[in-house]
């Protein structure tokens, strides 16, 4: 594998295998669960930074330690889009329900 780890010097190289992926996904879920607890959707928004640091710093560190760098930003962004998609989905279902009630 052509992977020179000097860019991510503070972190060991991410070995892309089943165990590593599982570990990464699990720590991601832990981290997101913690964010849910403190009602934070966007982990990227700078406004939330201090709140996340105060409440979920261990989960965040673990998540960032266990996942490849490109995955970290991908999962963070995905959390926001998933949340939005979920909202749209719920609204559509609600509209459908109301339309059915009117009938």
């Amino acid at each position, binding site marked *: 594998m052509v992977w*020179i780890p000097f860019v991510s010097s503070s972190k060991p190289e991410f070995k892309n295998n089943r165990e590593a992926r599982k570990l990464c996904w699990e720590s991601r879920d832990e981290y997101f669960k913690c964010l849910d607890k403190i009602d934070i959707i966007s982990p990227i928004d700078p406004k939330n930074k201090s709140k996340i640091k105060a409440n979920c710093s261990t989960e965040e560190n673990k998540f960032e330690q266990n996942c*490849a760098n*490109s995955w970290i930003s991908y999962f963070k962004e995905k959390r926001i889009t998933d949340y939005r998609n979920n909202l749209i989905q719920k609204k559509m279902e609600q509209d459908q329900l109301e339309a059915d009630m009117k009938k």
Partner: protein
Amino acid sequence: MLRLTRRNWLPLIKKPLPFTRLLHTNAIRYNTPKSHLSRQPIGGSQASRTRTRRFENVEFNAPLSIAFFLFVGGLSYAIFEYQKNKMDKEQEKESRKGYGTPQIGGHPFKLIDQDGKEFSDKDMLNKFSIVYFGFSHCPDICPDELDKLGCWLDDLSKDRIELQPLFVTCDPARDSPEVLKEYLKDFHPGIRGLTGTYEDIKQMCKQYRVYFSTPEHVKPGQEYLVDHSIFFYLMDPQGKFITILGRNLDELTGAEKIRESIWEYKRTH
């Protein structure tokens, strides 16, 4: 349709005609004194004799004509139904291929597999293949999809349906044959990983209508993700496209769709 029905129904209209004529002539003949003596009834007035004779004649011929009518009617109905069925089937077959299958795959290509062996479009002949595009650094979707593919392959092999599973990378810069070999160890052992030069992969993706965006020149060590469309492509033994399978299908429904598509293919080819 109209031509066929008219031809079928024609005998039904024509045939019963001589029958009715026969009925009449017989009735008249019995009343004439010229008829054979043994045929002439004994006793009774001329009028009553005529009435009974006429009645008897009708009674004698009615079951026969009814039977004849039913026979001809039934026969033409059966022919009509048979022709109709045949035409319906032809129409159905026509409609299925009428709109044309999308131009996916079927063109020549030359890539290399995870063992460094050449793999071309000719290696897709004489067997069904299932093609998936992804990349080994894919965070969550590809591994899930490849696990699902493994389930399908196991499920289908129980029915003796063998597919050639192919994983084509959209990230040739990082996915060398060695990387693919290491990556695919985690999945179904039958899966063949394909890579090549950026140009080769670009051509391959283009013929499968796969959208992907890989930066062409990446500095070593620089991390990036590849955006790509996520579909499985089921290909026939001539290397031509049969159907796509999307993310909405799970371990069971996906295998079912492949099974049905292959049965349907075998039925029509």
